[in-house]
């Protein structure tokens, strides 16, 4: 049996649509600075410490190639430079009462310089998903290597 659409049905539909629209506007409107940013290219340094010689060499071999960084596994950048140096750890001179950075006898630390085009706003530098800032835990992986416990130590703007 065909039923006529009643005025009450239309009112209910409108009320539900308005309710859903309000929820959607509130939920999706959180990141309101994203569309007001501008594109720029940055280089940032990521420090990985306490690596074996093989780990350090695995990273060095990927200089110039694309690497994935960040927790979301989406953003990629170009590994522009790899600087390997002895791993420095904090030693104590308990005679003189001093802390000293002491080179580890067999382990290394590596500074990976990654170049990436990002969106710059007042509040962040952001790639596809990752916000990049000094002090942020930023895992990096490339072909044949992966480092979880590493941090951004510097950011430089290369060009706009």
């Amino acid at each position: 049996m065909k039923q006529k659409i009643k005025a009450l049905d239309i009112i209910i539909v409108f009320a539900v649509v308005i309710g859903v629209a309000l929820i959607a506007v509130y939920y999706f409107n959180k990141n309101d600075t994203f569309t007001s940013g501008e594109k720029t290219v940055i280089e940032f340094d990521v420090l990985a410490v306490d690596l074996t010689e093989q780990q350090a060499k695995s990273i060095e071999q990927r200089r110039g190639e694309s690497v994935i960084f960040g927790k979301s596994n989406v953003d990629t950048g170009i590994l522009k430079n790899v600087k390997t140096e002895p791993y420095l750890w904090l030693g104590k001179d308990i005679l003189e009462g001093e802390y000293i950075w002491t080179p580890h006898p067999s382990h290394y630390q590596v500074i990976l310089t990654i170049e990436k085009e990002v969106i710059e706003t007042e509040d962040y530098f952001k790639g596809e998903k990752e916000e990049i800032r000094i002090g942020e835990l930023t895992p990096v992986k490339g072909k044949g290597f992966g480092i979880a416990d590493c941090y951004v130590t510097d950011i430089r703007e290369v060009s706009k």
Partner: protein
Amino acid sequence: MIDKNGKLFGKISIVDLAVIAAVVILLAGIYVRFLGGPTKTVVQSSDFYYTLEVKNIRESNLRGLEKSLNGRFYLNEKITSEMGVLINIESSPAKRFLELTDGRTVDADLPERFDAILTFKLTGRVNDRGYFTPTLNHISSGISYNIKGKYSAVTGKVLKVWE
């Protein structure tokens, strides 16, 4: 009261009535949650200040904080949780206690590392219970926060809060 067709007083279906009631409750809930409604606690938006102590940071992170002076900071979890505008930085060489061979303890410098006290100005909520961010995070001496600005992310402990 309800006739054989399921209509209340012969006019309106009981099912329609239930749906109307549900929609009214939904809209009322949306109004209260998102657009403001009667609140039990009276809070005022006002400016207050707090200091946050960060310890053992690299020089590059300190430079990043200096670049972020007069910039906004947020809780590390989400960009909408504002933690205020950074208005002052006082930095000093980082120190840590070290016990010597003779049992004495000295407060030794950590080379190439810094401690800093960051001062923030925040327009938040203030009432008798305390000071709150706009999203109702409690700003109170002793609480630690992971915060982020444009250039730096740090973890610090609130030292002092005042108006």
